[in-house]
């Protein structure tokens, strides 16, 4: 099914039929990943640039593998920090890359809105691999794929995103995507880590983790940022773990069968105990595998999209 969207900038304005197409197509690619030769020639001759202005080994490797397994030529362009510190403007960097004739740009940047800006200064297909604290659509799609694969559906499910919602791009994309697919989304965390206006997005706010466990089918546990700036928003990781950490005792106490997701990397002993991070409820490594399949589906659907029709 041809996607309506030409780029993947975020999930806020992506239709449920597009999300459905991506998730359905990813099923085929997951199968490719299970074969002895995990590669198909589909994007032969297409060039993809992974433009990473922020360190993110996982997302980058996942995209890189997805590209290579589709037989695209892929190049990594990593810059740590902003264009300002590099001495070349973002626009100049992009124009230089474009001059080398590329087809798609996968972009990760610390500043929100950069993927959108990129579509204005470039002719390439743009895929957002995370922009500031805005969106991380491919992560949300792989989360949704993983939930659907495990529970068979998204519609009607109750999903709670736990942790640092205020500094998370994963949260926002999950909220938009899951809501589009008919799931009921809530967020759980200390008040200082939840944006003041999140309720306006139709999201329920919970401050008690036990309540979150009892009310939901799925918990998507976000990484707690250990950097100084984010940490000023809660007293200590010890206190966070005590009141919001997912532990065996807490799960047993609530006697509830919930599916646990985590986008990684995990801070063991902070947002989730080691026991739970390796336990039966979680599908953390499955998410990583699915990440490649979902990204292959996105690259395929956008990279072979025909014409300008909508």
């Amino acid at each position, binding site marked *: *099914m*041809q996607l309506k969207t030409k780029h993947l900038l975020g999930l806020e304005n992506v239709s449920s039929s597009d999300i459905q197409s991506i998730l359905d*197509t990813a*099923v*085929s*690619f997951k*199968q*490719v990943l299970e*074969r*002895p*030769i995990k*590669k*198909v*020639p*589909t994007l032969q001759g297409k060039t993809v640039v992974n433009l990473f202005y922020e360190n993110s080994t996982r997302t980058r490797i996942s995209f890189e593998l997805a590209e290579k397994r589709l037989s695209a030529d892929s190049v990594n362009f990593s810059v740590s920090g902003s264009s300002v510190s590099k001495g070349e403007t973002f626009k100049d960097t992009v124009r230089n890359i474009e001059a080398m004739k590329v087809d798609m740009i996968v972009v990760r940047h610390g500043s929100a809105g950069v993927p959108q800006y990129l579509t204005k200064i470039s002719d390439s297909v743009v895929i957002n691999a995370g922009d500031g604290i805005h969106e991380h659509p491919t992560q949300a799609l792989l989360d949704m794929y993983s939930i659907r694969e495990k529970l068979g559906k998204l519609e009607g499910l109750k999903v709670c995103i736990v942790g640092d919602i205020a500094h998370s791009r994963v949260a926002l994309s999950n909220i938009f995507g899951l809501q589009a697919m008919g799931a009921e989304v809530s967020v759980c965390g200390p008040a200082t880590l939840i944006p003041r206006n999140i309720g306006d997005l139709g999201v329920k706010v919970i401050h008690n983790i036990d309540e979150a466990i009892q009310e939901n089918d799925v918990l998507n546990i976000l990484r707690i940022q250990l950097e100084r700036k984010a940490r000023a928003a809660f007293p200590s990781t010890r206190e966070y773990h005590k009141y919001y950490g997912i532990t065996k005792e807490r799960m047993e106490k609530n006697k509830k069968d919930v599916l646990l997701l985590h986008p990684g990397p995990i801070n063991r002993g902070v947002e989730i105990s080691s026991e739970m991070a390796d336990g039966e409820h979680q599908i953390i490594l499955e998410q990583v595998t699915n990440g490649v399949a979902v990204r292959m*589906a996105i690259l*395929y*659907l956008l990279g*072979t*999209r*025909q*014409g300008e029709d909508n």
Partner: protein
Amino acid sequence: MNIKAKILDQEALLRIITRMSHEIIEKNKGPENLIIMGLRTRGEYLATRLRDKILSIENVDVPLGILDVTLYRDDFRTRLKQPEVSVSNITFDITDKNIVLVDDVLYTGRTIRSALCAIMDFGRPATIKLCCLVDRGHRQLPIKADIIGKNIPTSINEEVRVKLLEHDGEDAVYLVEV
């Protein structure tokens, strides 16, 4: 589109399938080490019928695979519509097996080229043979079928439409003009 001729009716079609089943067994010197692999969409149903037929003749249940070659196509840049990807269904190891690839109509040979590439990515079979219900000519690649149901010479502005009960509600082969 207008129908120029009904080339095969159900009776003729079933007779051909029976003959093709025999030919498969004969060329493979028996049903051992054999895999029937149908190409989506109609090749899949033909393959299923061939498998069933072989079961009734030889009393051996030959493994059946289904291959989707969308990801291996060579026409992404020239097509008007993006092809929909669907899953292959090959739940067994194909290494050192004799594969019989089944499709409904053999035309340019490009789909078969895609299928051969796709199969190689699943493993290394001993042999691959091609079995097609209809060969309409106009090959663009050096590919030829080992087992052919019926040769139907066509002109370039004609098309062969295979209809199967499972998918189209009838068993028949038509020659149409486009």
